[in-house]
Protein backbone atom coordinates (compact mmCIF):
# COMPACT_ATOMS: atom_id res chain seq x y z
CA UNK A 1 0.00 0.00 0.00
CA UNK A 2 1.22 3.42 -0.87
CA UNK A 3 1.23 5.89 1.97
CA UNK A 4 0.86 9.35 0.53
CA UNK A 5 0.99 12.47 2.65
CA UNK A 6 -2.80 12.62 2.74
CA UNK A 7 -3.14 9.07 4.01
CA UNK A 8 -0.65 9.79 6.77
CA UNK A 9 -2.55 12.86 7.84
CA UNK A 10 -5.78 10.87 7.90
CA UNK A 11 -4.11 8.21 10.01
CA UNK A 12 -2.93 10.98 12.28
CA UNK A 13 -6.50 12.16 12.76
CA UNK A 14 -7.65 8.67 13.53
CA UNK A 15 -4.91 8.28 16.11
CA UNK A 16 -5.96 11.56 17.70
CA UNK A 17 -9.49 10.29 17.83
CA UNK A 18 -8.25 7.15 19.53
CA UNK A 19 -6.66 9.30 22.19
CA UNK A 20 -9.83 11.25 22.97
CA UNK A 21 -11.22 8.97 25.70
CA UNK A 22 -7.98 9.11 27.62
CA UNK A 23 -7.73 12.89 27.18
CA UNK A 24 -11.35 13.40 28.15
CA UNK A 25 -10.82 11.41 31.31
CA UNK A 26 -7.63 13.29 32.11
CA UNK A 27 -9.34 16.68 31.76
CA UNK A 28 -12.49 15.37 33.45
CA UNK A 29 -14.63 16.40 30.45
CA UNK A 30 -16.75 13.38 29.48
CA UNK A 31 -18.72 15.69 27.19
CA UNK A 32 -15.92 15.52 24.64
CA UNK A 33 -16.10 11.76 24.50
CA UNK A 34 -19.75 12.10 23.65
CA UNK A 35 -19.14 14.88 21.13
CA UNK A 36 -16.42 13.09 19.21
CA UNK A 37 -18.38 9.88 19.19
CA UNK A 38 -21.23 11.81 17.66
CA UNK A 39 -18.85 13.31 15.12
CA UNK A 40 -17.64 9.87 14.14
CA UNK A 41 -21.16 8.54 13.70
CA UNK A 42 -21.99 11.41 11.40
CA UNK A 43 -18.68 10.88 9.65
CA UNK A 44 -19.90 7.40 8.79
CA UNK A 45 -23.14 8.84 7.43
CA UNK A 46 -21.19 11.47 5.54
CA UNK A 47 -18.79 8.98 4.02
CA UNK A 48 -21.72 6.99 2.71
CA UNK A 49 -23.09 10.13 1.06
CA UNK A 50 -19.64 10.99 -0.24
CA UNK A 51 -19.66 7.70 -2.12
CA UNK A 52 -22.64 8.66 -4.24
CA UNK A 53 -22.35 12.42 -4.11
CA UNK A 54 -18.63 13.05 -4.01
CA UNK A 55 -17.48 10.26 -6.26
CA UNK A 56 -20.67 9.57 -8.17
CA UNK A 57 -22.00 13.06 -8.67
CA UNK A 58 -25.45 12.02 -7.53
CA UNK A 59 -26.85 14.93 -5.58
CA UNK A 60 -29.06 13.02 -3.17
CA UNK A 61 -30.96 15.35 -0.94
CA UNK A 62 -32.65 12.48 0.82
CA UNK A 63 -29.81 10.67 2.46
CA UNK A 64 -31.03 11.30 5.99
CA UNK A 65 -33.82 8.85 5.23
CA UNK A 66 -31.41 5.99 5.86
CA UNK A 67 -30.36 7.39 9.22
CA UNK A 68 -34.03 7.19 10.03
CA UNK A 69 -34.59 3.72 8.65
CA UNK A 70 -31.60 2.36 10.53
CA UNK A 71 -32.62 4.08 13.75
CA UNK A 72 -36.22 2.96 13.46
CA UNK A 73 -35.20 -0.61 12.74
CA UNK A 74 -33.34 -0.68 16.04
CA UNK A 75 -35.99 1.33 17.87
CA UNK A 76 -38.92 -0.71 16.71
CA UNK A 77 -37.27 -4.02 17.58
CA UNK A 78 -36.30 -2.66 20.99
CA UNK A 79 -39.87 -1.46 21.52
CA UNK A 80 -41.04 -5.02 21.00
CA UNK A 81 -38.49 -6.42 23.39
CA UNK A 82 -35.87 -7.57 20.89
CA UNK A 83 -32.54 -6.21 22.06
CA UNK A 84 -30.06 -8.43 20.28
CA UNK A 85 -27.60 -6.01 18.72
CA UNK A 86 -26.62 -8.24 15.82
CA UNK A 87 -30.25 -8.73 14.86
CA UNK A 88 -31.08 -5.07 15.27
CA UNK A 89 -28.11 -3.72 13.39
CA UNK A 90 -28.42 -6.41 10.76
CA UNK A 91 -31.99 -5.36 10.17
CA UNK A 92 -30.98 -1.70 10.18
CA UNK A 93 -28.51 -2.34 7.38
CA UNK A 94 -30.81 -4.66 5.48
CA UNK A 95 -33.85 -2.45 5.71
CA UNK A 96 -31.86 0.59 4.63
CA UNK A 97 -30.49 -1.30 1.67
CA UNK A 98 -33.97 -2.36 0.68
CA UNK A 99 -35.43 1.13 0.99
CA UNK A 100 -32.49 2.49 -1.00
CA UNK A 101 -33.12 -0.13 -3.65
CA UNK A 102 -36.77 0.82 -3.98
CA UNK A 103 -36.19 4.58 -3.95
CA UNK A 104 -33.12 4.23 -6.12
CA UNK A 105 -34.87 2.11 -8.72
CA UNK A 106 -37.18 5.02 -9.39
CA UNK A 107 -34.82 7.93 -8.80
CA UNK A 108 -31.45 6.88 -10.17
CA UNK A 109 -32.79 6.91 -13.71
CA UNK A 110 -33.23 10.63 -13.36
CA UNK A 111 -30.53 13.20 -13.01
CA UNK A 112 -29.90 16.82 -12.26
CA UNK A 113 -32.64 18.75 -10.57
CA UNK A 114 -35.13 15.92 -10.91
CA UNK A 115 -32.92 13.66 -8.86
CA UNK A 116 -32.50 16.31 -6.18
CA UNK A 117 -36.20 16.94 -5.88
CA UNK A 118 -37.20 13.30 -6.01
CA UNK A 119 -34.79 12.13 -3.35
CA UNK A 120 -35.94 14.98 -1.16
CA UNK A 121 -39.58 14.13 -1.71
CA UNK A 122 -39.11 10.45 -0.85
CA UNK A 123 -37.29 11.31 2.35
CA UNK A 124 -40.11 13.62 3.30
CA UNK A 125 -42.53 10.82 2.63
CA UNK A 126 -40.69 8.58 5.07
CA UNK A 127 -40.60 11.44 7.56
CA UNK A 128 -44.37 11.80 7.37
CA UNK A 129 -44.70 8.05 7.70
CA UNK A 130 -42.61 8.20 10.83
CA UNK A 131 -44.68 11.01 12.28
CA UNK A 132 -47.98 9.31 11.66
CA UNK A 133 -47.25 5.97 13.26
CA UNK A 134 -48.35 6.67 16.79
CA UNK A 135 -47.26 3.33 18.14
CA UNK A 136 -43.64 4.26 17.62
CA UNK A 137 -43.85 7.69 19.10
CA UNK A 138 -45.24 9.62 16.18
CA UNK A 139 -44.20 13.21 16.33
CA UNK A 140 -42.61 13.04 19.77
CA UNK A 141 -40.46 10.04 19.22
CA UNK A 142 -39.60 7.08 21.33
CA UNK A 143 -37.15 6.38 24.08
CA UNK A 144 -34.90 3.45 23.39
CA UNK A 145 -35.88 0.92 26.06
CA UNK A 146 -32.46 -0.65 26.14
CA UNK A 147 -29.29 -0.11 24.16
CA UNK A 148 -28.40 -2.72 21.59
CA UNK A 149 -27.07 -5.75 23.40
CA UNK A 150 -23.98 -7.55 22.22
CA UNK A 151 -23.50 -9.87 25.16
CA UNK A 152 -19.91 -10.11 26.32
CA UNK A 153 -18.53 -8.66 23.10
CA UNK A 154 -19.08 -5.01 23.94
CA UNK A 155 -21.24 -3.08 26.38
CA UNK A 156 -22.65 0.01 24.73
CA UNK A 157 -23.58 1.54 28.05
CA UNK A 158 -19.86 1.86 28.67
CA UNK A 159 -19.10 5.17 26.94
CA UNK A 160 -15.49 4.32 26.18
CA UNK A 161 -16.29 0.87 24.81
CA UNK A 162 -18.99 2.33 22.62
CA UNK A 163 -16.56 5.02 21.52
CA UNK A 164 -13.95 2.54 20.38
CA UNK A 165 -16.57 0.46 18.62
CA UNK A 166 -17.59 3.48 16.59
CA UNK A 167 -13.96 4.37 15.91
CA UNK A 168 -13.32 0.82 14.77
CA UNK A 169 -16.32 0.85 12.46
CA UNK A 170 -15.34 4.24 11.07
CA UNK A 171 -11.82 3.08 10.30
CA UNK A 172 -13.08 -0.12 8.71
CA UNK A 173 -15.60 1.74 6.57
CA UNK A 174 -13.04 4.32 5.51
CA UNK A 175 -10.88 1.48 4.30
CA UNK A 176 -13.74 -0.32 2.57
CA UNK A 177 -14.92 2.78 0.76
CA UNK A 178 -11.36 3.60 -0.21
CA UNK A 179 -11.01 0.17 -1.85
CA UNK A 180 -14.43 0.51 -3.42
CA UNK A 181 -13.77 3.79 -5.18
CA UNK A 182 -10.55 2.48 -6.67
CA UNK A 183 -12.01 -0.82 -7.80
CA UNK A 184 -13.49 -1.37 -11.25
CA UNK A 185 -16.88 -0.60 -9.76
CA UNK A 186 -15.67 2.66 -8.32
CA UNK A 187 -14.02 3.65 -11.58
CA UNK A 188 -17.31 3.25 -13.41
CA UNK A 189 -19.09 5.46 -10.91
CA UNK A 190 -16.39 8.10 -11.13
CA UNK A 191 -16.23 7.88 -14.89
CA UNK A 192 -19.98 8.33 -15.17
CA UNK A 193 -19.67 11.45 -13.05
CA UNK A 194 -16.76 12.78 -15.09
CA UNK A 195 -18.33 12.26 -18.49
CA UNK A 196 -21.55 10.34 -18.86
CA UNK A 197 -21.72 10.45 -22.66
CA UNK A 198 -18.22 9.07 -22.95
CA UNK A 199 -19.04 6.32 -20.47
CA UNK A 200 -21.99 5.19 -22.54
CA UNK A 201 -19.95 5.42 -25.70
CA UNK A 202 -17.36 2.93 -24.48
CA UNK A 203 -20.07 0.45 -23.58
CA UNK A 204 -20.93 1.09 -19.94
CA UNK A 205 -24.47 1.76 -18.85
CA UNK A 206 -24.18 3.78 -15.64
CA UNK A 207 -27.59 2.86 -14.22
CA UNK A 208 -26.89 -0.55 -12.62
CA UNK A 209 -23.67 0.69 -11.08
CA UNK A 210 -25.21 3.88 -9.78
CA UNK A 211 -28.10 1.94 -8.31
CA UNK A 212 -25.70 -0.44 -6.60
CA UNK A 213 -23.72 2.49 -5.21
CA UNK A 214 -26.96 4.07 -4.01
CA UNK A 215 -27.89 0.87 -2.18
CA UNK A 216 -24.44 0.49 -0.62
CA UNK A 217 -24.52 4.09 0.53
CA UNK A 218 -27.97 3.58 2.00
CA UNK A 219 -26.87 0.48 3.85
CA UNK A 220 -23.84 2.18 5.39
CA UNK A 221 -25.99 5.13 6.42
CA UNK A 222 -28.45 2.69 7.97
CA UNK A 223 -25.64 1.44 10.17
CA UNK A 224 -24.93 5.03 11.12
CA UNK A 225 -28.58 5.34 12.07
CA UNK A 226 -28.35 2.32 14.33
CA UNK A 227 -25.30 3.85 15.97
CA UNK A 228 -26.99 7.21 16.30
CA UNK A 229 -30.07 5.90 18.04
CA UNK A 230 -27.83 4.15 20.56
CA UNK A 231 -25.90 7.38 20.97
CA UNK A 232 -28.97 9.46 21.73
CA UNK A 233 -30.99 6.62 23.31
CA UNK A 234 -33.93 8.36 21.70
CA UNK A 235 -35.68 7.91 18.40
CA UNK A 236 -37.46 10.69 16.53
CA UNK A 237 -38.64 11.24 12.97
CA UNK A 238 -36.32 14.23 13.01
CA UNK A 239 -33.51 11.84 12.12
CA UNK A 240 -35.09 11.91 8.67
CA UNK A 241 -35.78 15.60 8.55
CA UNK A 242 -34.74 17.07 5.26
CA UNK A 243 -32.58 19.62 7.06
CA UNK A 244 -30.60 16.66 8.35
CA UNK A 245 -30.02 15.70 4.71
CA UNK A 246 -28.77 19.20 4.07
CA UNK A 247 -26.39 18.92 7.00
CA UNK A 248 -24.97 15.68 5.62
CA UNK A 249 -24.42 17.31 2.27
CA UNK A 250 -22.63 20.16 3.94
CA UNK A 251 -20.37 17.77 5.76
CA UNK A 252 -19.39 16.24 2.47
CA UNK A 253 -18.77 19.62 0.84
CA UNK A 254 -17.01 21.22 3.79
CA UNK A 255 -14.73 18.26 4.04
CA UNK A 256 -14.00 18.08 0.35
CA UNK A 257 -15.92 16.19 -2.29
CA UNK A 258 -14.61 12.90 -3.52
CA UNK A 259 -11.82 12.58 -0.98
CA UNK A 260 -11.26 9.92 1.64
CA UNK A 261 -10.64 12.24 4.57
CA UNK A 262 -13.33 14.69 3.55
CA UNK A 263 -16.34 13.20 5.35
CA UNK A 264 -14.49 12.96 8.64
CA UNK A 265 -13.14 16.50 8.40
CA UNK A 266 -16.50 17.81 7.27
CA UNK A 267 -18.46 16.09 10.03
CA UNK A 268 -16.02 17.38 12.60
CA UNK A 269 -16.06 20.88 11.15
CA UNK A 270 -19.83 21.19 10.93
CA UNK A 271 -20.65 19.63 14.28
CA UNK A 272 -17.94 21.57 16.08
CA UNK A 273 -19.13 24.75 14.39
CA UNK A 274 -22.71 24.08 15.43
CA UNK A 275 -21.56 23.32 18.93
CA UNK A 276 -19.50 26.50 19.14
CA UNK A 277 -22.28 28.69 17.82
CA UNK A 278 -24.73 27.25 20.30
CA UNK A 279 -22.68 27.40 23.43
CA UNK A 280 -19.18 28.84 23.23
CA UNK A 281 -18.77 31.24 26.11
CA UNK A 282 -16.71 33.60 24.01
CA UNK A 283 -19.72 34.30 21.82
CA UNK A 284 -22.54 36.56 23.02
CA UNK A 285 -25.94 35.08 23.87
CA UNK A 286 -27.61 36.64 20.90
CA UNK A 287 -25.46 34.40 18.76
CA UNK A 288 -26.42 31.36 20.81
CA UNK A 289 -30.10 32.06 20.50
CA UNK A 290 -30.09 32.40 16.76
CA UNK A 291 -27.13 30.19 16.00
CA UNK A 292 -28.69 28.81 12.84
CA UNK A 293 -28.65 32.30 11.39
CA UNK A 294 -24.91 32.50 11.73
CA UNK A 295 -24.53 28.93 10.58
CA UNK A 296 -26.53 29.79 7.50
CA UNK A 297 -24.36 32.81 6.78
CA UNK A 298 -21.19 30.79 7.17
CA UNK A 299 -22.55 28.03 4.95
CA UNK A 300 -23.50 30.47 2.20
CA UNK A 301 -20.05 32.07 2.37
CA UNK A 302 -18.36 28.68 2.25
CA UNK A 303 -20.30 27.66 -0.84
CA UNK A 304 -19.67 30.94 -2.59
CA UNK A 305 -16.00 31.24 -1.78
CA UNK A 306 -14.42 28.04 -0.50
CA UNK A 307 -15.01 25.50 -3.23
CA UNK A 308 -12.59 22.76 -2.46
CA UNK A 309 -13.38 22.20 1.17
CA UNK A 310 -11.03 21.38 3.98
CA UNK A 311 -9.43 18.42 2.27
CA UNK A 312 -8.32 20.89 -0.38
CA UNK A 313 -5.97 22.29 2.22
CA UNK A 314 -4.15 18.99 2.51
CA UNK A 315 -1.14 18.35 0.25
CA UNK A 316 -2.11 17.36 -3.27
CA UNK A 317 -1.83 13.76 -4.40
CA UNK A 318 0.33 13.21 -7.47
CA UNK A 319 -1.21 12.27 -10.78
CA UNK A 320 -4.52 13.96 -10.36
CA UNK A 321 -7.66 13.19 -8.39
CA UNK A 322 -7.61 11.46 -5.05
CA UNK A 323 -8.35 7.76 -5.02
Amino acid sequence: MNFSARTLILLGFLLLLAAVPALAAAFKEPFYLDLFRRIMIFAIAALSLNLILGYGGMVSFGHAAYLGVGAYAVGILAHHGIHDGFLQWGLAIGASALVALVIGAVSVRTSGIYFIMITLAFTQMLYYLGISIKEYGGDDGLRLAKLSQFGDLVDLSNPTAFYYLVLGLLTLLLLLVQRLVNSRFGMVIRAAKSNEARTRAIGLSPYPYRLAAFVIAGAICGLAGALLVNQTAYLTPDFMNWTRSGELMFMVILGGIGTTAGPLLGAAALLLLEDLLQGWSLLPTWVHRYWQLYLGIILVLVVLFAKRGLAGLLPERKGGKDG
Partner: protein
Amino acid sequence: MAETMLEARALHKAFGALAATDGVDFEVRAGETHAIIGPNGAGKTTFISQLSGTLRPDRGQIFFAGEDITSLAAPARSLKGLARSFQITSIYRDFSTLDNVALAVQANAGHSFHFWRAARDEKELREPARAILEEVGLGARAEVVAANLAHGEQRQLEIAMALATRPRLLLLDEPVAGMGTEESQRMVEFLATLKGRQTIVLVEHDMDAVFSLADRISVLVYGRIIASGSPEQIRANPEVRAAYLGEET
Protein backbone atom coordinates in the same frame (compact mmCIF):
# COMPACT_ATOMS: atom_id res chain seq x y z
CA MET B 1 -18.61 -9.34 -52.67
CA ALA B 2 -17.78 -7.79 -49.32
CA GLU B 3 -20.51 -8.07 -46.70
CA THR B 4 -22.40 -5.04 -45.49
CA MET B 5 -21.12 -4.04 -42.09
CA LEU B 6 -23.41 -1.13 -41.30
CA GLU B 7 -26.60 -0.10 -42.97
CA ALA B 8 -29.10 2.66 -42.40
CA ARG B 9 -32.51 2.51 -44.09
CA ALA B 10 -34.80 5.48 -44.54
CA LEU B 11 -33.38 7.17 -41.47
CA HIS B 12 -35.29 10.25 -40.44
CA LYS B 13 -34.77 12.68 -37.58
CA ALA B 14 -36.38 16.06 -37.19
CA PHE B 15 -35.89 18.79 -34.63
CA GLY B 16 -39.15 20.66 -34.67
CA ALA B 17 -39.62 21.72 -38.26
CA LEU B 18 -36.04 21.03 -39.27
CA ALA B 19 -35.34 17.61 -40.78
CA ALA B 20 -31.73 17.00 -39.78
CA THR B 21 -31.79 13.56 -41.32
CA ASP B 22 -34.20 13.34 -44.20
CA GLY B 23 -34.75 9.78 -45.32
CA VAL B 24 -31.14 8.59 -45.51
CA ASP B 25 -30.08 5.25 -46.95
CA PHE B 26 -26.50 4.42 -46.19
CA GLU B 27 -24.33 1.33 -46.26
CA VAL B 28 -20.77 0.51 -45.34
CA ARG B 29 -18.95 -2.59 -46.54
CA ALA B 30 -16.70 -4.60 -44.30
CA GLY B 31 -13.12 -3.38 -44.37
CA GLU B 32 -13.78 -0.18 -46.29
CA THR B 33 -13.14 3.36 -45.21
CA HIS B 34 -16.27 5.31 -46.00
CA ALA B 35 -16.14 9.07 -45.62
CA ILE B 36 -19.13 11.34 -45.13
CA ILE B 37 -18.65 14.91 -46.22
CA GLY B 38 -20.97 17.84 -46.48
CA PRO B 39 -21.24 21.55 -45.74
CA ASN B 40 -21.63 22.75 -42.18
CA GLY B 41 -25.06 22.16 -40.78
CA ALA B 42 -25.68 19.27 -43.14
CA GLY B 43 -26.53 17.03 -40.22
CA LYS B 44 -23.38 14.92 -40.16
CA THR B 45 -23.03 14.73 -36.39
CA THR B 46 -26.74 14.09 -36.01
CA PHE B 47 -26.39 11.22 -38.44
CA ILE B 48 -23.39 9.75 -36.64
CA SER B 49 -25.19 10.10 -33.32
CA GLN B 50 -28.06 8.05 -34.62
CA LEU B 51 -25.66 5.41 -35.84
CA SER B 52 -23.89 5.25 -32.49
CA GLY B 53 -27.11 5.26 -30.52
CA THR B 54 -26.86 8.57 -28.70
CA LEU B 55 -29.83 9.90 -30.64
CA ARG B 56 -32.99 8.02 -31.50
CA PRO B 57 -34.22 8.39 -35.05
CA ASP B 58 -37.88 9.25 -35.59
CA ARG B 59 -38.16 6.68 -38.36
CA GLY B 60 -35.97 4.18 -40.09
CA GLN B 61 -33.73 1.29 -39.19
CA ILE B 62 -30.09 0.60 -38.55
CA PHE B 63 -28.39 -2.72 -39.14
CA PHE B 64 -24.99 -3.75 -37.87
CA ALA B 65 -23.46 -6.93 -39.31
CA GLY B 66 -26.93 -7.95 -40.35
CA GLU B 67 -28.47 -7.39 -36.94
CA ASP B 68 -31.20 -4.79 -36.34
CA ILE B 69 -29.76 -2.47 -33.70
CA THR B 70 -32.28 0.36 -34.07
CA SER B 71 -33.68 -0.10 -30.59
CA LEU B 72 -30.34 -0.69 -28.88
CA ALA B 73 -28.94 2.03 -26.64
CA ALA B 74 -25.42 3.36 -27.08
CA PRO B 75 -23.65 1.16 -24.51
CA ALA B 76 -25.12 -1.98 -26.07
CA ARG B 77 -24.00 -0.91 -29.53
CA SER B 78 -20.52 -0.27 -28.27
CA LEU B 79 -20.37 -3.74 -26.80
CA LYS B 80 -21.37 -5.15 -30.18
CA GLY B 81 -18.34 -3.52 -31.71
CA LEU B 82 -19.58 -0.14 -32.88
CA ALA B 83 -17.10 2.39 -31.53
CA ARG B 84 -17.32 6.14 -31.75
CA SER B 85 -15.06 9.13 -31.37
CA PHE B 86 -16.58 12.55 -30.79
CA GLN B 87 -16.25 15.73 -32.79
CA ILE B 88 -16.01 17.83 -29.67
CA THR B 89 -13.43 16.07 -27.57
CA SER B 90 -15.15 13.98 -24.95
CA ILE B 91 -12.66 12.37 -22.64
CA TYR B 92 -12.26 11.96 -18.90
CA ARG B 93 -10.48 15.20 -18.24
CA ASP B 94 -9.65 14.56 -14.61
CA PHE B 95 -8.21 11.10 -15.18
CA SER B 96 -4.79 10.28 -16.59
CA THR B 97 -4.39 9.39 -20.26
CA LEU B 98 -3.74 5.79 -19.33
CA ASP B 99 -6.78 5.73 -17.05
CA ASN B 100 -8.89 6.93 -19.94
CA VAL B 101 -7.92 4.07 -22.20
CA ALA B 102 -7.95 1.55 -19.35
CA LEU B 103 -11.57 2.47 -18.69
CA ALA B 104 -12.42 1.70 -22.28
CA VAL B 105 -10.64 -1.64 -21.95
CA GLN B 106 -12.50 -2.28 -18.71
CA ALA B 107 -15.83 -1.53 -20.34
CA ASN B 108 -15.25 -4.40 -22.72
CA ALA B 109 -13.89 -6.82 -20.17
CA GLY B 110 -17.19 -8.10 -18.87
CA HIS B 111 -19.15 -6.55 -16.03
CA SER B 112 -17.53 -4.15 -13.60
CA PHE B 113 -19.06 -5.38 -10.37
CA HIS B 114 -15.64 -5.92 -8.83
CA PHE B 115 -15.38 -4.13 -5.53
CA TRP B 116 -12.00 -4.77 -4.01
CA ARG B 117 -9.01 -4.93 -6.35
CA ALA B 118 -7.71 -1.55 -7.39
CA ALA B 119 -8.42 -1.15 -11.10
CA ARG B 120 -5.15 0.70 -11.55
CA ASP B 121 -3.29 -2.38 -10.38
CA GLU B 122 -4.92 -4.72 -12.85
CA LYS B 123 -2.49 -5.81 -15.53
CA GLU B 124 -5.24 -7.13 -17.77
CA LEU B 125 -6.52 -3.57 -18.02
CA ARG B 126 -3.31 -1.55 -17.92
CA GLU B 127 -1.24 -3.51 -20.40
CA PRO B 128 -3.67 -3.51 -23.33
CA ALA B 129 -4.24 0.17 -22.59
CA ARG B 130 -0.54 0.92 -22.76
CA ALA B 131 -0.23 -1.01 -25.98
CA ILE B 132 -2.94 1.05 -27.62
CA LEU B 133 -1.40 4.28 -26.40
CA GLU B 134 1.86 3.23 -27.99
CA GLU B 135 0.09 2.39 -31.22
CA VAL B 136 -1.57 5.78 -31.35
CA GLY B 137 1.62 7.60 -30.43
CA LEU B 138 0.72 8.68 -26.92
CA GLY B 139 2.89 6.14 -25.10
CA ALA B 140 5.06 8.78 -23.50
CA ARG B 141 2.04 10.72 -22.19
CA ALA B 142 0.41 7.87 -20.30
CA GLU B 143 0.64 9.45 -16.86
CA VAL B 144 -0.38 12.95 -17.90
CA VAL B 145 -3.79 14.13 -16.72
CA ALA B 146 -5.97 14.20 -19.80
CA ALA B 147 -6.96 17.83 -19.34
CA ASN B 148 -3.29 18.77 -19.67
CA LEU B 149 -2.80 17.11 -23.03
CA ALA B 150 -2.45 19.27 -26.11
CA HIS B 151 -5.53 19.47 -28.27
CA GLY B 152 -4.08 17.18 -30.91
CA GLU B 153 -3.10 14.65 -28.28
CA GLN B 154 -6.63 14.70 -26.93
CA ARG B 155 -7.93 13.89 -30.40
CA GLN B 156 -5.49 10.99 -30.47
CA LEU B 157 -6.82 9.88 -27.12
CA GLU B 158 -10.35 9.88 -28.55
CA ILE B 159 -9.22 7.43 -31.21
CA ALA B 160 -7.32 5.35 -28.67
CA MET B 161 -10.42 4.98 -26.52
CA ALA B 162 -12.44 3.92 -29.54
CA LEU B 163 -9.80 1.33 -30.42
CA ALA B 164 -9.65 0.02 -26.87
CA THR B 165 -13.21 -1.24 -27.10
CA ARG B 166 -12.12 -3.82 -29.70
CA PRO B 167 -14.41 -2.45 -32.38
CA ARG B 168 -15.53 -3.99 -35.60
CA LEU B 169 -16.44 -0.59 -36.97
CA LEU B 170 -15.14 2.85 -36.11
CA LEU B 171 -17.34 5.93 -36.32
CA LEU B 172 -14.90 8.83 -36.37
CA ASP B 173 -16.46 12.27 -36.12
CA GLU B 174 -13.93 14.79 -37.46
CA PRO B 175 -10.83 13.16 -35.98
CA VAL B 176 -8.53 15.95 -37.11
CA ALA B 177 -10.83 18.77 -36.02
CA GLY B 178 -8.84 21.74 -34.76
CA MET B 179 -5.47 20.15 -35.51
CA GLY B 180 -2.55 21.89 -37.18
CA THR B 181 -1.17 20.64 -40.52
CA GLU B 182 1.61 18.49 -39.08
CA GLU B 183 -0.63 16.93 -36.45
CA SER B 184 -3.34 16.23 -39.01
CA GLN B 185 -0.85 14.53 -41.27
CA ARG B 186 0.33 12.27 -38.49
CA MET B 187 -3.24 11.42 -37.60
CA VAL B 188 -4.04 10.65 -41.23
CA GLU B 189 -0.95 8.44 -41.46
CA PHE B 190 -2.08 6.62 -38.36
CA LEU B 191 -5.61 6.20 -39.63
CA ALA B 192 -4.14 4.83 -42.84
CA THR B 193 -2.55 2.04 -40.84
CA LEU B 194 -6.02 1.08 -39.65
CA LYS B 195 -7.41 0.81 -43.16
CA GLY B 196 -8.36 -2.70 -44.09
CA ARG B 197 -8.02 -3.94 -40.52
CA GLN B 198 -10.96 -1.86 -39.40
CA THR B 199 -14.12 -0.76 -41.09
CA ILE B 200 -14.17 2.99 -40.75
CA VAL B 201 -16.89 5.59 -41.18
CA LEU B 202 -15.19 8.94 -41.28
CA VAL B 203 -16.90 12.29 -41.04
CA GLU B 204 -14.50 14.99 -42.09
CA HIS B 205 -14.10 18.49 -43.44
CA ASP B 206 -10.42 18.17 -44.20
CA MET B 207 -10.42 17.20 -47.89
CA ASP B 208 -6.81 16.03 -47.91
CA ALA B 209 -7.63 13.54 -45.18
CA VAL B 210 -10.79 12.45 -46.92
CA PHE B 211 -9.30 11.88 -50.35
CA SER B 212 -6.25 10.08 -49.06
CA LEU B 213 -8.17 7.74 -46.76
CA ALA B 214 -11.57 7.10 -48.27
CA ASP B 215 -12.48 4.14 -50.42
CA ARG B 216 -15.95 5.56 -50.84
CA ILE B 217 -17.45 8.96 -50.14
CA SER B 218 -21.03 9.92 -49.42
CA VAL B 219 -22.08 13.55 -49.56
CA LEU B 220 -24.63 14.76 -47.05
CA VAL B 221 -26.42 18.02 -47.78
CA TYR B 222 -29.39 19.26 -45.73
CA GLY B 223 -29.96 15.83 -44.27
CA ARG B 224 -29.92 13.99 -47.59
CA ILE B 225 -27.24 11.97 -49.31
CA ILE B 226 -26.97 13.58 -52.71
CA ALA B 227 -24.14 11.43 -54.02
CA SER B 228 -22.20 8.33 -53.09
CA GLY B 229 -19.30 6.71 -54.84
CA SER B 230 -15.54 6.48 -55.28
CA PRO B 231 -13.43 9.60 -54.65
CA GLU B 232 -13.01 10.18 -58.39
CA GLN B 233 -16.72 9.92 -59.01
CA ILE B 234 -17.43 12.38 -56.23
CA ARG B 235 -14.78 14.81 -57.43
CA ALA B 236 -16.34 14.77 -60.84
CA ASN B 237 -19.96 15.00 -59.73
CA PRO B 238 -21.35 18.42 -60.74
CA GLU B 239 -24.00 18.52 -58.01
CA VAL B 240 -21.39 17.88 -55.39
CA ARG B 241 -19.09 20.47 -56.83
CA ALA B 242 -21.87 22.99 -56.74
CA ALA B 243 -23.06 22.19 -53.26
CA TYR B 244 -19.76 21.64 -51.59
CA LEU B 245 -16.49 21.25 -53.36
CA GLY B 246 -17.24 24.22 -55.54
CA GLU B 247 -16.99 26.43 -52.49
CA GLU B 248 -13.63 24.91 -51.55
CA THR B 249 -11.72 24.98 -54.89
